[in-house]
């Protein structure tokens, strides 16, 4: 099993979700997060006072999938979240040791 963690632009969330459903992804977790990468931040001006805001709002998606599905999920996310402009985000992939569905006690692949 792999955990695929993607940081994307907030307005791309629906596109990504629509791209993942046909692949058989049964569920995912979404968080509103802030951070910075090459995009750095932005400047805000309030009555002449300028503030550089270094953390921009992003969406973090976490989805755990069977290993054989990982490549197609990564590809789907990268296509759906792509704008070609700076700040599109990143995808990280981690190994997952175990999984359990709390309601039934099913384990690993059956729990996904």
């Amino acid at each position, binding site marked *: 099993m792999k955990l695929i963690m993607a940081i994307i632009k907030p307005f791309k969330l629906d596109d990504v979700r629509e791209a993942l459903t046909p692949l058989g992804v049964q569920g995912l977790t979404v968080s509103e997060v802030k951070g910075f990468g090459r995009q750095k931040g932005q400047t805000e*001006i*309030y009555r*002449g*006072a300028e*503030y550089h805001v270094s953390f921009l709002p992003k969406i973090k998606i976490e989805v755990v999938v069977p290993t054989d599905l990982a490549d197609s999920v990564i590809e789907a996310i990268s296509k759906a979240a792509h704008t070609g402009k700076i700040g599109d985000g990143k995808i990280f992939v981690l190994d997952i040791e175990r999984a359990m569905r709390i309601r039934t006690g099913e384990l690993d692949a059956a729990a996904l």
Partner: protein
Amino acid sequence: MKRLPLRWGMVALLPPLLAAAPAFAADAAPPKIDTGDTAWMLTSTALVLMMTIPGLALFYAGMVRKKNILATLMQSFAITCIVTIVWAVAGYSLAFTAGNAYIGDLSRFMLNGIAAHIKDGADTGFLLGAGGAGALPQTIPETVFMMFQMTFAIITPALIAGAFADRMKFSALCIFMTLWSLLVYSPVAHWVWAPTGWIAGLGVLDFAGGTVVHINAGIAGLMCALVLGKRVGYGNDNMAPYNLAYSVIGASLLWVGWFGFNAGSAVGSNGRAGMAMAVTQIATAAAALAWMFAEWVAKGKPSVLGAASGAVAGLVAITPASGFVLPGASIIIGVAAGVICFWSATSLKHMMGYDDSLDAFGVHCVGGIVGALLTGVFAFAPLGGTAGSLHQLAIQAIGVISTLGWSGVMTLVILMITKALVGLRVNEDEEREGLDLVLHGEQVF
């Protein structure tokens, strides 16, 4: 509060301060109530109270950081309560009884005598400044007049709080506002609006409080900002507003409430109130657009806070002029206020280096001066009894300078007294932690 021409002189300079409540029967029968006037003044009173809570409270709270939102709301709320009591005990009496040219007397101490002429259900008007020269018959009950004026007495000190946001002790605020209401607001209101007041005697035009409310509060705010000093981290830390949606709601409530403020200052339900309402709306829109376009050109984007601030600047500037000027002039007053206040709040402040956190001075004092002076230029005689002229402009300037001087000096004195009693500022650690938690033990969100 401005009725027709103000031609009473400076009479009765120093009658005994505790003159007995004037006996109405000796003067004349009290004027009759006009139910239309009374209905509008009851409505206006509620509208003006809405300007402070929640209007100004939200306008200011939206501009501070998350850790100070409750404390900022509390400032407006507490000032509303404090000034209500101060006004009932002595403020109203000192402002609106005959007294002398500089201060009223104590004949309405604890609102004593406000019911003296009431019988058979109380439907009688009253004489404003009874017992003094130029007393003015009013067609509304004195309770309504006292309440309407109370809402002005409330919002004026609440405006000051924008200058020292994020750093004043709450205990200091309670003491400062009590003293300021008695020693600054009541005298200045008396000078300008009581029939015996010396500024009224000069013929200064201030329909709804350009001098009494806005210049008065604005210069006091500047003094507070100078004496308290800058917020910790000013110029380095990110002090971006946490929730400008509050500010937009607050500015909008101020706008609507301002119809009570300006059109209510006709103290009647009449054509002058109608004209005051019209010019208030037009000047406000003009000022919001002027600030917005000025910012668009100068900074690249038309900000929401800018448009809301411009509207408030326009409301401030049209305040003394409403009831004296026509719609055409109100556009000029609005545009001038929008552009000049944009400059004072975004450039002058940073040039001079004071931390007038929410621009009490930059918007209210500067906007008030623009409006007070332009009233002298654009006054339309058939409406208010005085025509605009260079001479009137000079008279207006006397009103402006007198208010700046008295309020500026007395505010410094009151700050010194308050500092000696409880200190003015929270300490640096407390300021970093935020006033909500440190002063009130609560948090928002």
